């Protein structure tokens, strides 16, 4: 690796490493709080609650991710998301917009 390569790569790798440490190792381990369910959501399944939790976690971490952007698998890998997408309350649409756009 010559100096011209180091001039770009070394500082960039240091920034990536710092963000990695802050995100995966040294960040405060605040217990995740369960989000409030939408009206009528008390009878939701476990999978639905899990997705509510994911949404809450993603929103909480967005403020402290450094240079990282959250990356979530698309809905095609999670068949249980499909019924949520038909939810007329709009909660699922916002969930989908948060996770997949």
């Amino acid at each position, binding site marked *: 690796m010559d100096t011209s390569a180091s001039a770009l790569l070394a500082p960039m790798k240091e*920034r990536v490493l710092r963000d990695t440490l802050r*995100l995966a190792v040294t960040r405060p381990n605040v217990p995740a709080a369960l989000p409030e369910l939408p009206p009528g959501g008390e009878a939701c399944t476990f999978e639905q609650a899990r997705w509510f939790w994911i949404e809450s976690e993603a929103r909480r971490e967005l403020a402290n991710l450094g240079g990282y952007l959250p990356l979530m698998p698309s809905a095609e*890998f999670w068949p249980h998301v499909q019924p949520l997408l038909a939810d007329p309350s709009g909660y699922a649409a916002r969930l989908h917009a948060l996770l997949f756009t």
Partner: protein
Amino acid sequence: MLAPPEPRTFLLSADVTKTLRPFLVRVFRSEGLQPAPGADAEEPAVPVVRARQPGLSWSLLWTVANVRAGQAPAGAGAGAKVNHFITSFHLTHKARLLQNLERQRKRLAGAPGAPAFEWMPRAWLLPLSPDRLAVLLPGADGADALPPPPTPTTPRAGGEPAGPPLAMVLKPTAASRGDGFHLATTWEEALPFNRAGYMLQRYVHPPDLIERRKYHVRLYLLLTALDPPRAYVHREGYIKLAMQPYVPAFTADGPVSDATAYGVHVTNHRQGNVYEADPYHPLDRLWAHFAERCVPMSRGAGGRELPAAASDTAAGGAALSLARPRGADVTAIQRSLHRALAQLVAVAVDSMREDSPPTFTEDHSFELFGVRRRARRARVPQTATDCTHCARSPPASMPARWTCCLTRRCGRRSWRRTCRRRWTRARARSWPP
């Protein structure tokens, strides 16, 4: 979740190179981590098997090689982290990734909205039977002991129609950094590699070029949990150019003799920096390249790249006269890259979760992956729909991301044939509207 022990301490495994240790120690210290008590304060590096010794407490173990199940840091303290998942080979090992990809393809076959997994070129694990190999590779005279070469009407694997012979990449399934790479243009070249431990992969063609060279995009993918999968992609990354200008492996007259040169096709760090210019560029250079390369191409030989100075040559002048301000949809490109990374994680994470030993919880792991991605010229989405070659506009019913020429007045016959074939496929999918 349990709180990590205080103060936070770190340990390096002995396989971290001595040139890398000072960098890691400096960054770790600046982030509030201290060397583990009982280890060398300057370079706290010990073999991984010693990391579980009594009296050696640490919060972070940084290794280069993957951690095996027997080395799981279960006794290292609550909240201790290792920078590897034990089952990350499902993502990093080429054969495993290919098996996981096929598994997901079968699982999602026929499902509405199933992804096409176009981020990975079609690949096959070797060995393949001679019949199978003959379909995939162009035949050659003198193959006495082998079946005859395929006829032009023989369909290629994956249902693709027969066309000009394509180059195939052969590489070991468990190697990296370009070790063992070989580009085959005939099956005589491929036969010595038709054995276990190798894979055959379709060559990305035509590749997108910067400064007439192939390049790859390097992105950083961080995985912090498996269930549910929690992945992040870093905003920063870089592109790296190949050592030599690109030479297509095939022309209409047949294989190009010097097309298999290593520096033409391999763009990773193995090749060194023989290229006189700086081969590393920030991602901004890539976005600028996409934004500027919507200029119609020159019509010279192999004219898939932009002229170096559009006003210097006759072809360049013609290209300049046809140019119009058009911008690439950089946001769409970024979304495409992120979608590919998300699918990459989703493909492997099920197997990673299933194979994780019960004695090792995933809370102990995170892993930073460097992902390389090459751009295929035809796949680069653009906002403009005019032909990149003759600058004529396609019919209004044409999909917006198509940029090919549909008029018979275009000068490049082969390009026009390709365009018409794609147009036929697109119309078959979208008609009736």
